[in-house]
């Protein structure tokens, strides 16, 4: 049976653990707020970009001769590139593990169909885990894209530039990004977003933008068809690569917010568990102390009776 002193030591150590986890929780909470603000601030650009793209790319389909490759693809589906986004640090529950699992599933899935897979890693955790099993597939590891506090567009753009130059060199046909989509503070969903060829979503923003212009036309009675300068093709060709950058950036922001949210929840749980453990240990400690006192009393009484 552990002595009273053992109990006291254990309670002390759990208490200090609880202090650490609750501090980490508070740090994560404040970082979460900051990353969420950042994600919100980045939305107008992404929306405006999506609106423009929807407007320009509507006229293209796979059969157009001059459609850019970024939009319709290379016509093949042989080589896949996965951009895997995890966090640099752990202690955030399943956050990294889910992404790694999702990536492994994707790799297995693609390989079973006879496709070639290569990887770009962002975030140390994903890189170390994946390099154990699939080192030969990792073409690049970005270790400086995720800032300590904030994601910078200039840095995330480096990833986009690399992806685009690989695409120009014909090193892959399809590029997707595996990342944690921020659903709410409690839920981050591992998601796969296709970057190249660009998948046009019928976003409500795009429709909103076109509605706005028709409203103007109705109010004024003027009707202007949209004109493009220099030309529709050139604008589309300029928009698409930038859009890859924007999508990667928004993925990184989602992941950054998700990481902090996951850490906050994990640390909240850890703090609560530590509290439960302390209660338990204190109970056991009190029992042991009581038992010790009773034992001493019995000894004294039986000693007195023996006289």
């Amino acid at each position, binding site marked *: 049976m552990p002595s009273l002193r053992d109990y006291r030591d254990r309670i002390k150590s759990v208490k200090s653990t609880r202090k650490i986890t609750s501090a980490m929780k508070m740090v994560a909470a404040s970082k979460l707020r900051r990353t969420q603000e*950042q994600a919100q*601030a*980045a939305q*107008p*650009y*992404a929306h*405006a*970009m999506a*609106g*423009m793209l929807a*407007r*320009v790319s509507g006229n293209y389909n796979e059969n157009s001769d001059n459609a850019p490759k970024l939009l319709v693809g290379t016509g093949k589906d042989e080589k896949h590139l996965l951009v895997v986004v995890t966090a640099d640090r752990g202690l955030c529950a399943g956050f990294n593990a889910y992404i790694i699992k999702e990536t492994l599933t994707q790799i297995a899935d693609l390989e079973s169909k006879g496709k070639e897979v290569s990887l770009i890693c962002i975030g140390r955790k994903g890189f170390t885990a994946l390099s154990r099993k699939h080192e030969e597939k990792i073409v690049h590891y970005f270790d400086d894209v995720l800032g300590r506090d904030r994601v*910078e*567009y200039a840095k995330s*753009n480096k990833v986009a530039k690399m992806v685009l130059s690989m695409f120009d060199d014909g090193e892959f046909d399809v590029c997707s990004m595996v990342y944690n989509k921020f659903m709410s503070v409690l839920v981050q969903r591992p998601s796969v977003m296709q970057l190249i060829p660009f998948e046009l979503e019928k976003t409500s923003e795009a429709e909103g*933008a076109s509605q*706005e*212009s028709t409203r*103007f*036309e109705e*109010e*004024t009675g*003027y009707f*202007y*068809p*949209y*004109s*493009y*300068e*220099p030309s529709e093709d*050139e*604008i589309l060709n*300029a*928009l698409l690569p*930038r859009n890859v*950058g*924007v999508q990667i*950036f928004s993925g990184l922001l989602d992941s950054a917010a998700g990481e902090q949210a996951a850490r906050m929840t994990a640390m909240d749980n850890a703090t609560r568990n530590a509290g439960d453990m302390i209660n338990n240990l204190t109970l056991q400690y009190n029992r042991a102390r009581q038992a010790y006192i009773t034992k001493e009393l019995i000894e004294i009484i039986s000693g007195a009776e023996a006289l």
Partner: protein
Amino acid sequence: MIGTEIQFELISPEKKLVSETVYLAEIPGDKGMFGVLPGHSSMLVSLGVGVVRLHKTKGDDDVKKIFISGGFADVTGTSCTVLAEEAIAVSDLDQASLEQRLSDLQEDLKLAEEMADKQRIREEINMTKSKLFAITGY
């Protein structure tokens, strides 16, 4: 009825930088400057490097100047949205440090050996020159 002002917005990937109503926005298009007045026809324009100039009211001398390094503009009769990857108010540009940077870069260019490096430095030199021109040229 055409209004007397347009809603001008300047957005960078990281945040919305400017959102205000203006009478006239002069914008550096790829193929030259153009002005946007209320009731402009709808268009999508790709932008070059240059300075966006905002006039709050008609005949306003107090012009707000913002340097952008290219991007896109979505113009309708009531609004003008500019997407720019890099945007900085001309008043925030510092001539002395830009000139210093320019001479540093030219130094770098002489030392650079690889083609890719040279290309990158040349691009940066052009960008710095454009910024300097934005201060002195207007």
